[in-house]
């Protein structure tokens, strides 16, 4: 169908990766239907019948806890005529009833009843394909739920690998009670560009000082009037490291296209943390040495290919939901650390408002650039996008090296060829 092997070269990739609708359809098939995709968190499914809706590879799914405690991911599509069965984003139900002809499904997807059942042959209800189709595999890592649309392939823990698991571990370990809950709603930022643009941007440490200059300059001009700066200011200001400082940041390219980058938020955030009720509560639970170990986990984003960003320090997860080859949604979620003072959660909420709302003065500039890239890649004779920075140092990349992006594109080629 496509000779995808020729689209990714060492140090450059073809513009069709960003613009070709046929390749996008193939990506859904070969990447998003094979990788483990994040669904949500077990805290959203406390009691039997609790559910929430999300999407996998563009398809709507319901994630629900059955009365026996098992979690199922069900395609949100009536097997009868194709109507969306559940229109609510979340809630608790006894069963799912299709609004069109009242086909009724149990929370494990099995068909419970249809009206005037004698209209079908005997044994109809026991047949295949009459229930809500189940996503073949659902698994949980420390409360984080993932689904896989392929019945075969490696298990979730192998897919994540130790370095990505460490990010989820750290998010949970930062809770004094050792548990977190998804809370506070979510943000959805939409941009008219390919999903890979955000994947690359999130590990692109050369751009912040340059692209976000207007926000950094505005932060520099704020007069705090002797008061401590706000957490929102911190997060904007933190982008203003010098290019050399960004270059000195640690980045790591991992198997399967995953990667992570070191922490860059101003030291002030950590210093302030030491004299807080949160810190004292953590020490009371875990002892000083262990708490220092947990809090010194110095990473910003851990990026799970093909579209998840885990930030344990901000208790935040973002997920890309590709809509089409030139349109992407970025969903931002926050976690409440159980046992931590409520102020900590409120600070996480404020940081997400600042960074990942459509009104953000930081990511809005990223998305503006993505759209300009998308527009210019869509036409013209220039076939290639350059990703050659630091090509000779793939094994030990400096902060601004494009090695993690090349690593993403290698993973893309591997998925796409299979």
């Amino acid at each position, binding site marked *: 169908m496509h000779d995808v092997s020729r689209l990714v070269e060492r140090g450059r990739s073809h513009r069709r990766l960003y613009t070709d609708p046929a390749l996008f359809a193939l990506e859904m098939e070969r990447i998003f239907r094979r990788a483990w995709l994040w669904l949500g968190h077990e805290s959203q499914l406390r009691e039997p019948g609790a559910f929430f809706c999300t999407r996998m590879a563009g398809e709507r799914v319901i994630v629900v806890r059955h009365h026996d405690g098992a979690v199922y991911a069900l395609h949100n599509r009536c097997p009868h005529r194709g109507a969306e069965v559940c229109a609510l*984003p979340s809630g608790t139900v006894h069963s799912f009833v299709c609004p069109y002809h009242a086909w009724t499904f149990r929370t494990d997807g099995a068909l419970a009843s249809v009206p005037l059942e004698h209209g079908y042959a005997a044994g109809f209800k026991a047949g295949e394909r009459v229930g809500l189709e189940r996503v073949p595999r659902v698994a949980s890592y420390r409360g984080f739920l993932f689904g896989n649309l392929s019945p075969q392939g490696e298990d979730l823990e192998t897919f994540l690998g130790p370095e990505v698991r460490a990010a989820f571990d750290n998010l949970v370990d930062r809770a004094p009670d050792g548990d977190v809950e998804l*809370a*506070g*709603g*979510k*943000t*959805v*930022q*939409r*941009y*008219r560009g390919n999903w890979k643009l955000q994947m690359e941007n999130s590990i692109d440490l050369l751009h912040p000082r340059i*692209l976000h*200059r*207007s*926000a950094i*300059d*505005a*932060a520099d*001009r*704020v007069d*705090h009037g002797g008061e401590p700066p*706000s957490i*929102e*200011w911190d997060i*904007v200001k933190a982008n203003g490291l010098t290019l050399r400082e960004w270059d000195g940041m640690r980045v790591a390219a991992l198997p399967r296209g995953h990667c992570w980058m070191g922490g860059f938020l101003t030291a002030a955030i950590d210093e302030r943390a030491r004299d807080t009720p949160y810190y004292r509560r953590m020490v009371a639970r875990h002892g000083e040495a262990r708490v220092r170990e947990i809090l010194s986990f110095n990473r910003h984003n851990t990026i799970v290919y093909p579209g998840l960003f885990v930030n344990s320090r901000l208790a935040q997860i973002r997920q890309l939901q590709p*809509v089409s080859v030139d349109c992407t*949604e*970025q*969903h*931002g979620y*926050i976690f409440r650390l159980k046992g931590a003072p*409520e102020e900590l*959660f*409120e600070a996480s*909420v*404020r940081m*997400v*408002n*600042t960074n990942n*709302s*459509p*009104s*953000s*003065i930081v*990511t*809005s*500039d990223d*998305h*503006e*650039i993505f759209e*300009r890239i998308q527009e210019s890649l869509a036409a013209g004779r220039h076939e290639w996008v350059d990703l050659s920075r630091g090509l000779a140092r793939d094994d030990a990349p400096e902060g601004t090296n494009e090695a993690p992006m090349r690593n993403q594109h290698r993973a893309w080629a591997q998925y796409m060829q299979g």
Partner: protein
Amino acid sequence: MIAASLERWHEVQQFLFREARLLDERRFAQWLALFDPDAEYWVPYAWQQQSPKDHVSLYYETVKLLGMRVDRLARELSPLDTPPARVNHYLSNVTVEEGEGELVARAYLLFVEYRRAEQRWFAGRSTWRLRPAAGDFRIAAKRVDLLNADQESGHLRFAVPF
């Protein structure tokens, strides 16, 4: 709170029109000066959102943060605002209630934005808490509830405040 007199209603409405015009004409410093130093500017993410503390917001800003935001727009360095957005804030259905040292104004908002070959429209309901100040008013709090605040497919980025 009781319904304000016709005269008061007129004064407040003129104040709201002036606020809208300052935004539309990109006179951001003057717009900011309409707010009390401890004012809050809030655009909820959820419909009928109760609190900005325990749930995300489209905007939830102190005057200091708003100042940083409009300072950025005023200097025209941001790709987001290059070329600058042109906006109109239309206000209608204005009502004013008056209480002890404070007024509450409500209006329907139609926000139209043009930028880079595209025009967008947002509809919402705006609420102001106002304090009388030397023959004029100061904004103690402004809240804008967009009809599609929680639109499932998300929003493209915002530049000029609602």
